[in-house]
């Protein structure tokens, strides 16, 4: 098959300096057509459509491998006890999967019940105040952090504040027909009148925009403050209720060029935690 070919080299010696009849002019239309196709694919993603259609057309062929495997497995196990065992294993697997699903549902129910219990405990402190519940339907971090809450009442007003199982978490930013947008307390636009629960000194807590972090505004260097001091809402101004924990002092920094201390307050409240939000007037 491979031998004998090179005996024609004598003939080829005369032909070696000749070129085939192929002319470049025959190539140009094909190249042009291909470039057009390339442009079409680049602009309109033709190949994606072709791939989808071809995968649909050739799907029976791609299934052949699996079909063959299944057939061989069926044949090899049909006449043996393996079939019974494999059926039993499959049945048990399904049972385990169902139980896992049930377990997951029960865990979710337990979490919801715990959350509701905490919210109801919280609601006891709002004696003689109207409270409303809403269901969290969305959480967005960009461009602005907020949660959307579905409500089924028209009695919620913009001056109300929002609580979850942790406590005070945010204020109403926007009232829509069936939902509300809530921004977190740590939003940079919010200022919360507060006080140090140890010294009872009034301070203003400003959101940093970072989750669970606040700054105390304009706290003088000679003021009494320590790491670990608990900061609670003071209720001044009537925007926020009094006595709710807002966090603990975590950092105190002194700057020579300023008369004020830079104080960071942190809490462990998760703004987007749970599925329910409670609304009330301050």
């Amino acid at each position, binding site marked *: *098959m*491979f031998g004998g*070919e*090179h005996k*024609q*080299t004598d003939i*080829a*010696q005369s*032909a*070696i*300096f*000749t*070129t*085939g*009849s*192929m002319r*470049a002019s*025959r*190539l140009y239309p*094909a*190249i042009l*057509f*291909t*470039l057009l*196709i*390339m442009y*079409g*694919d*680049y602009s309109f993603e*033709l*190949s994606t459509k*072709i*791939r989808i259609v*071809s995968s649909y057309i050739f799907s029976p062929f791609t299934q052949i491998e699996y079909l063959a495997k299944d057939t061989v497995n069926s044949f090899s196990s049909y006449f043996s006890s393996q079939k019974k065992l494999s059926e039993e294993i499959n049945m048990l697997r399904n049972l385990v999967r169902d139980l896992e699903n049930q377990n997951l549902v029960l865990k979710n129910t337990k979490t919801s019940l715990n959350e509701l219990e905490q919210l109801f405990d919280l609601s006891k402190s709002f004696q003689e105040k109207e409270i409303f519940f809403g269901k969290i339907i969305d959480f967005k971090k960009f461009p602005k952090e907020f949660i959307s809450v579905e409500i089924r009442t028209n009695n919620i007003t913009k001056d109300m504040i929002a609580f979850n199982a942790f406590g005070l978490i945010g204020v109403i930013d926007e009232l829509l027909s069936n939902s509300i947008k809530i921004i977190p307390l740590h939003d940079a636009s919010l200022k919360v009148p507060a006080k140090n629960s140890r010294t009872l000194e009034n301070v203003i807590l400003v959101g940093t925009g970072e989750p669970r972090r606040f700054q105390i505004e304009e706290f003088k260097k000679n003021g009494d403050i320590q790491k670990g001091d608990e900061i609670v809402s003071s209720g001044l101004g009537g925007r926020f209720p009094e006595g709710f924990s807002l966090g603990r002092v975590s950092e105190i920094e002194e700057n020579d060029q300023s008369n004020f201390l830079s104080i960071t307050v942190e809490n462990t409240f998760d703004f987007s935690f749970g599925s329910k939000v409670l609304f009330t007037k301050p």
Partner: protein
Amino acid sequence: MNSLDDKKPSIFTFYFFVGLTLIIASIVEILLNDFLLSRLTLPLTLMTLIYWNVATPRNIGFFWTMLSGFILDVFLGYLLGTHVVIFLLASYFSQRYFHRFRALFRLQQSLIVAIIVLIYQIYFILISNYFILSIIFELFILTIISSLFWPIIYGILRYLRIKLTYGQ
């Protein structure tokens, strides 16, 4: 009655046989691509194309070249026409210089094919912007493997061509 001309298949049979080998080579190349798990492929279609262009330059148009190129583009996930352009150029140069190519020894032919494969693989590295050290290793290994494959592809296709043409 018994002359070779009587046994020659029609031009259409031959034409479709060439197309069939090219499509089979494309399918094998696609399957090998999945199997090899490398960025580059073993260019069986290109080598088949070179063989047919050198062996029967008058019977080979650009249709099968383009079809096999499009098949590779679709199934290997390239922009449509990427393979076709290089296949067209390979076809053109093979048909232009088939006299010289035929006159070479098989080893020399393998060397020429290796150079074509090297250019072909570099073209795809440039297109995919995939410059890492391991690709150079893949490039040389696949080029060497391709040059080793050339005598096999040449032998098989030649055998099939003679069988189809003369029935021997």
